C-alpha cells in the first residue's frame, strides 16, 4: 500500500504528518510512505520516516496546482491513499476530492460545509445550536468592529488570528496594538480563565458516527498553548460533546477538539479539521486512528478500543542531522528518493 502524507515539520511548531506516518508503520511496517513537503527545511523529511519526499506547490497556488502535482506523483507511485494534515491545504483537497476518487486515490475529508461550520468564526454559533458551550466571539475586520465587540464582551478578551496567533487583551490600547499585530482580521473572543485544558482526537466516518477517540488533559504546553505533554482521561462530558459535533457535522476524517475547564463548564475552544501533532501518543495508547482511517477507506469496519485513562506522554525534542546533498536534491528536483535515516550518516 502506498500512502502520501503531508505536514512533515517537527520543529518548534510541530506538525502532525510524522505522527501519522509512525502510527501507520507501527501496525503496517511494509507501507510505502510518500512525504509531501512544502519546504525543504521540514525536519521530518530527513528522519527516515518517509520512503520518498516530494515538494508540493504552496496551498495559496490553488487546487489546480495541487491536482497537477498529485497527478505527477500518482503517475510514478500509484497512490492508494492521501492523508493531508494541514488546515490551510484542506480546502484545496476538498475541491479536488472528486478528481482523486476518479484516479482511485482514497482520502477522508469533511464536506466543505462541515469544514466551514467549525471554523473559529462559526464555532460559537455551531456549539450554541447543539447545546454546547463555547466562548462568545465576534469577527472584526476593522478596529471599530473590534472595539464594538469588547463593549459587548467586556475586557479581558482574546484576539485570535483566523489561522493562528492569539493575544490576551485587557485595555483599549492593547486592543489596537494586538489588532494590527494579527493582520487586522481577527476573532474577538470572551476570555475564559482556564483551570485545565483538554484535547480530544477522534475519527469520524462521514455518516455521523465516531469511530474512535482519545482525550488528554494537557500537563505541559508550549508558549503558544499547544500540548507538549498530557495524560489520558475518561471524561463523559467531553465524549458526549465530541459525539454531538461529529453527528451534527457528519465529520469524515481525523479531527481534534480543544476544551477548557473554567470551574463551571467544559468550553469548546477550537475544532481542528485534521490530526494533532500528539496523534502518535494516542496510537501508542492503543487508539490508532490513522490505521482505522485507512481501514475505513478500504471499506473495512475499523474497530478502535476505548482509551484507557491514566496514560502519560511527553514530547521529547531531539536533534537530527542530514546531508546537504539530500536537501539540494529536494530543492533542485522537487523530489528526494531513498531517504537516508540520520543514523546511517555516521
Amino acid at each position, binding site marked *: 500500500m502506498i500512502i502520501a502524507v503531508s505536514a512533515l515539520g517537527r520543529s518548534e511548531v510541530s506538525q502532525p504528518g510524522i505522527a501519522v506516518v509512525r502510527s501507520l508503520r507501527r501496525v503496517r511496517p511494509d507501507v510505502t510512505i510518500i512525504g509531501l513537503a512544502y519546504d525543504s527545511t521540514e525536519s521530518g523529511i530527513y528522519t527516515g520516516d518517509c520512503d520518498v519526499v516530494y515538494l508540493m506547490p504552496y496551498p495559496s497556488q490553488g487546487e489546480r496546482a495541487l491536482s497537477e502535482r498529485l497527478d505527477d506523483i500518482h503517475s510514478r507511485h500509484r497512490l492508494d491513499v492521501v492523508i493531508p494534515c494541514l488546515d490551510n491545504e484542506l480546502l484545496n483537497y476538498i475541491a479536488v476530492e472528486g478528481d482523486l476518487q476518479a484516479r482511485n486515490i482514497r482520502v477522508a475529508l469533511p464536506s466543505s460545509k462541515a469544514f466551514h461550520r467549525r471554523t473559529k468564526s462559526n464555532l460559537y454559533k455551531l456549539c450554541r445550536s447543539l447545546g454546547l458551550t463555547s466562548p462568545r466571539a465576534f469577527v472584526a475586520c476593522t478596529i471599530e468592529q473590534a472595539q464594538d465587540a469588547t463593549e459587548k464582551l467586556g475586557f479581558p478578551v482574546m484576539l485570535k488570528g483566523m489561522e493562528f496567533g492569539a493575544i490576551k487583551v485587557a485595555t483599549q490600547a492593547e486592543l489596537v496594538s494586538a489588532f494590527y499585530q494579527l493582520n487586522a482580521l481577527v476573532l474577538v473572543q470572551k476570555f475564559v480563565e482556564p483551570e*485545565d485544558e483538554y484535547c480530544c482526537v477522534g475519527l469520524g466516518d462521514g455518516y455521523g458516527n465516531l469511530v474512535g477517540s482519545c482525550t488528554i488533559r494537557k500537563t505541559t504546553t508550549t508558549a503558544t498553548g499547544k500540548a507538549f505533554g498530557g495524560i489520558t482521561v475518561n471524561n463523559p462530558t467531553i465524549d458526549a460533546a465530541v459525539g454531538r459535533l461529529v453527528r451534527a457535522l457528519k465529520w469524515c476524517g481525523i479531527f481534534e477538539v480543544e476544551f477548557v475547564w473554567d470551574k463551571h463548564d467544559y468550553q469548546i475552544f477550537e475544532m481542528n479539521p485534521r490530526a494533532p501533532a500528539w496523534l502518535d501518543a494516542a496510537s501508542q495508547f492503543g487508539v490508532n486512528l490513522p490505521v482505522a482511517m485507512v481501514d475505513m477507506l478500504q471499506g473495512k469496519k475499523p474497530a478502535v478500543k476505548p482509551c484507557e485513562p491514566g496514560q502519560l506522554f511527553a514530547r521529547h525534542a531531539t536533534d537530527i542531522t542530514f546531508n546537504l546533498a539530500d536537501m539540494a536534491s529536494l530543492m533542485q528536483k522537487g523530489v528526494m528518493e531513498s531517504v537516508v535515516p540520520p543514523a546511517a550518516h555516521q
Partner: protein
Amino acid sequence: MSLTFNHLRIVDGVVFDTVSGRFHRVTDTAAFIIEQMQRRAPVPNIILQLAETFAVPVETAARDVEHFMSGLLEEKR
C-alpha cells in the same frame, strides 16, 4: 450527590482522577479512606476502621474523614 468515587485510582501513593486528569500525592490515611469509599463502606465504618488501622482516636478519625470527603466532593466534576 452520589458518594461513589470510582473515578479515582490510587497508584503507589498518587491518586488520579480519571475524569479531570488531575493527580496528587496522598497520605496513607487518604488512600485508605478512598479505598474504603470505593468499596462503598458506610462512613461510620470508615471512621472506625481508620481509627483502628492508624491507632488514632475515633474523634480524630471522624474529623479527618469529614474534612477529606468534603474536599473530594468539591473537586468532583
